[in-house]
Structure formats: C-alpha cells, structure tokens
C-alpha cells in the first residue's frame, strides 16, 4: 500500500516534470514565431519600442490592408506571389516524391554493383554550396530560356529535394520486411501490385514526411529563387519578402504580414499531411 502510493506519487511527479519541460520547450519554439505573427498586427511604433510595450495597445489590420492596397500605398502583388509559390512548391514536391520513391525502392530492394558509391554520389549533390551552383545554373537556365519561369524553379527544387527523399524513403522501405511483399507475390499479385498494396501503405509515413520536407524546402527557399526569378511572373513569396526592404529602409511590420500569409498554408498542409505519419505506427509492429 505504502509502496504503491509512493510509486504513484513518483509517477505523477515525473509526469508533471515532463509536462513542464514540454511546455517550456514548446514556448521557446513558438515565441519567436508568434512574435512575428503579433508584429503583423501592431503599428510599427509599438514593435521595437523602448521602454517595451508588452501588452499591445492597439491591434489592427493596417499592414495587411497596405499589402493588398494599390501601387504606391505599400501594395505588393501578394496573390501573384502566392500562386507562384503554390504552383512551384506543389509540383516540385510531387515530382520529387515520385522520383524519390522510385530511387528509394531501388536502393532498398535491389542488390547491384556500386550501390554504395551511387548512393553517396547522389547524396553529395546536395552538399554543393548554393553559391558554387547559382551562377552556372543561371547561365544554363538563361541559355535554355528557363529564367523567370515556373518550370525552371520546379526543376531546380526537384533536384534539391530528390537526394533526401530517396534517402528517407529508402530508410522506410528497409523497415518493411521483404517477406511481406514476397507473400503478396505468392498470393498472385504482380510486383507492381504488391508494391502499391503492401509496401507503399507501410512506407507511407516515410513518404509523408519526405513530402513535408520537400514542400517546406521549396516553399521557403530563397537563395536560388532570388537568382532565377525576376518578375511577378515567377517570383515566390520568400523573394517577395524582399519587396519590403529597400536601400535604406525596411517595413518590418509589412514583412511580418506577408510572412504570416506564407506560414498559414504551410501550417495547414503540415497539419493535414502529418496524420499519415501515424500509419507507420500501426504497421510498425509487423517487424518484431
């Protein structure tokens, strides 16, 4: 009885400590971000004030109104940037996932000569610093007429994302026991059917997380986009953030407002897609 009670108290305390730690960790994660969100609703005078204004005196939509306003009133072609970002990120993510699934499957399920070397080779393409790449890439794109087009950026982002989608998906396919697919084939499925019916659902968690990563990378990429886009025809939102800076001035409140518009869709998508991670949970038991 006594031991039982002590045990229970200890478990409670442990649980409470965990909760507190989690709360602090989440605060550190969220506060710098929420600060940006809050700034988008505050007049500039309160954002970087001294003495600081901790409790906002006034919250309004002025920065948003200005952003959607006309030329000369602080207007920025938000909708155009948004559409560009959406088209480029979604298309490149889908392609990167397909290419990555094919590649990841090849590495996880086939034995062939030079496998390790090819794998490392593919991975190392990601190790090239953007600076070493951006100018030659610009020249190649300029010569092929792909500058300032959606396709140009999509191709680049697919290439950026393929190495690690392969890697990630490879890792998840490895977790799927080979016997599972073999059993399906014995049951009369083709390899193709076996893949979609048996292996894909199991590795879905991997595909989902690879998808999230690829999407967020493309959605937020700045360095190459700023080099390969020029006009509103293809500029993405991260490049659009720079519209709020000029030679000597910055409109930080306005920048925050655009940032919020960038964050919301990413957050929604993440929330929707990440439920597939759970699929890994149910099937994970198969292995043991």
């Amino acid at each position: 009885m006594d031991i039982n009670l002590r045990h229970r108290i200890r478990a409670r305390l442990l649980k409470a400590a965990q909760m507190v730690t989690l709360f602090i960790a989440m605060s550190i994660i969220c506060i710098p971000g929420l600060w940006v969100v809050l700034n988008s609703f505050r007049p500039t005078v309160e954002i970087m004030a001294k003495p600081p204004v901790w409790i906002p005196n006034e919250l309004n939509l002025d920065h948003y109104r200005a952003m959607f306003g006309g030329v000369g009133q602080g207007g920025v072609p938000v909708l155009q940037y948004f559409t560009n970002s959406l088209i480029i990120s979604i298309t490149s993510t889908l392609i990167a996932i397909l290419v990555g699934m094919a590649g990841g499957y090849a590495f996880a399920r086939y034995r062939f000569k030079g496998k390790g070397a090819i794998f490392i080779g593919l991975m190392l393409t990601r190790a090239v610093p953007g600076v070493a790449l951006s100018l030659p890439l610009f020249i190649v794109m300029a010569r092929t007429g792909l500058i300032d087009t959606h396709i140009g950026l999509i191709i680049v982002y697919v290439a950026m994302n393929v190495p690690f989608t392969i890697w990630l998906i490879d890792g998840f396919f490895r977790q799927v026991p080979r016997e599972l697919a073999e059993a399906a084939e014995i049951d009369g499925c083709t390899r193709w059917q076996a893949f979609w019916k048996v292996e894909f659902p199991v590795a879905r968690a991997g595909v989902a997380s690879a998808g999230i990563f690829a999407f967020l990378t493309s959605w937020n990429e700045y360095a190459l986009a700023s080099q390969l886009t020029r006009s509103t025809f293809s500029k993405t939102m991260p490049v659009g953030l720079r519209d709020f800076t000029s030679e000597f001035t910055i409109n930080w409140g306005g920048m925050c407002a655009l940032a919020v518009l960038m964050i919301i869709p990413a957050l929604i998508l993440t929330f929707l897609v990440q439920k597939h991670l759970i699929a890994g949970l149910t099937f994970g038991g198969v292995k043991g």
Partner: protein
Amino acid sequence: MSRLKLPQWFVLLLPAIIILSAVVLIPLLLSLYSSFTPYRLTRPETLYKWIGTFNYEKAITNANFWAAFGRTVLLLTIALNVEMLLGLGLALLVNRVTWGQRGLRTLMMFPMMFSPVLVGFQFKFIFNDNVGLVNNALQSLGFSDVAIPWLVDANLAMFSIIFAEVWTSTSVFAILILAGLFAIPRDPLEAAKVDGCTPWQTFRHITLPYLMPFIYIALAIRSLDVARAYDIVQIMTNGGPARRTELIWTMIGRTGYVDAKMGYANAMGYISIFLAIFFTIYFFKKLNAARTELGMGG
C-alpha cells in the same frame, strides 16, 4: 523482344540521375573550370584565361579563409549536436503525450515554416541590443541593466547565430526521430517491461538502437543542408563585426557576387565541398553500421 533490357534498379534510378546531372553536375563542372580562371563577372572575357591553381593557392595561404573554415566546422559541430539532442528530447516528450498530439506535432514543426530570410531578420531584431526583444525582456524583468551586444561580442554573436540556426532546424530532427519512434516494434518494448527493465535500460538498449538510423539520416541531411544557414548569417551579421562570425559561405558569397570574383569564390567553394563530403560520408558509414546491427543492411 530483342530490345535492350536495362536492369530494373537502373530504370528506377534513372529519373533521379538525369535530373541531378542536369541541375547539379553540369553547373558544377562549369564552376570547377572557372575556379582555374581569374573569372570576374563584370568582365566575361576573363573566363577564357587559364591561371592554373592560382586561386587555390591564394585561398590556402589566406589566414582569413582558414579562420572562417575553422569557424564553420565549429558551428556545424555545435549546431548539429545540439539540434540532435534537443530533437531527440523533444520527440520523446511529444511521443509520451496521448492527448492533442496531432496539434503538438504541428506546433513542433512551426519553425520549419519560416523562410531563412525571415529568420535572419527576425533574430536580427530579436537580438538587437537597443530595442530588441531579448534585451527588453531582460531589462524589464530586472535581470540586466546593460544593453548586451548580442550580435557584436565574439562569443555571443556565435551563440546568437547558433541559436537562430538551432531554432529553425531542431524540428527536422524531432520530426524524423518521432517518425522513427512510431516505427519501433511494440513487442521488444513489452518484453522489456515484463523482464523488469528500467525505463533508462529500455531506452538505452531497445529504443536508441532502433532510432540510430533515423538520427544518422537526420544528421546527414542536416549536414548537407546546413549551408542554408547562409541566408540567416548573411542578414544577421554578414560575417562581422571584424570577421568574428565570418563563415566560409558568407566569405564565398561576398567574394563571388559583391566583389564579382567568381573564379576565386568557386575555388574556395570547392575546398569547402570537401568539408561537406567528409561529414556526409562519416554519417553514411554510421548509418550503415546502425542498420547492419538491426539486420536491415543491404
């Protein structure tokens, strides 16, 4: 049916190989060539002048370059380790939560929604010594009555950059490790419970080995990707003040585009690629070892 039959694995890999050659390999060869020329962007004709290894010699004998190189290795090492540990801790904590986990997972990934440009400005203002959030908070709460120069003091400036970098990237580790936690089979865990293992023993001998491949994947992905920190550092300090936070990437970026000396910048770029290759191969080897241990090698 006499057509050439390529092995299936090759067909599966072909799209990846084609796209990576087009976007990475060809430009890379171009820039490799240009690193042997005095190539200056504003004078295109300089691309056709061969100067051998002059640029490499210049980089190798430049003390500032090696200082930046060392600082980059330091930043990589600290940032990756801290991110890994924090990510692991966060994943374990979130994994224990039974109610509202979906929302928590999304929140956990919140920093990943922030574009590096934005993160740069954000932390530049947060760490501003006069009107920044951190100093304002410290002064309001009475912890400090001086303006702490976060972005100027040699140690604090590195700390601020690492903080911004860790803030954006810990989520990557956390989410991958969490995915790994989901994939752990239940049976060994239950068996351990029955055998009376302490939570620590269970973690050390069952959970961790299963997580290692995921941790190494995350480490390798991040070590490849960490050059993205360039955007953040460029806006926060641009390598300054007095080169206290100069990294290879800020140095290359400035030399290549601002000074327009692309040949020299590419030479420095190639030297820095070896750094990335070293880290990647190291983690790759570790990954394979961890996989073999779990019987998933191949």
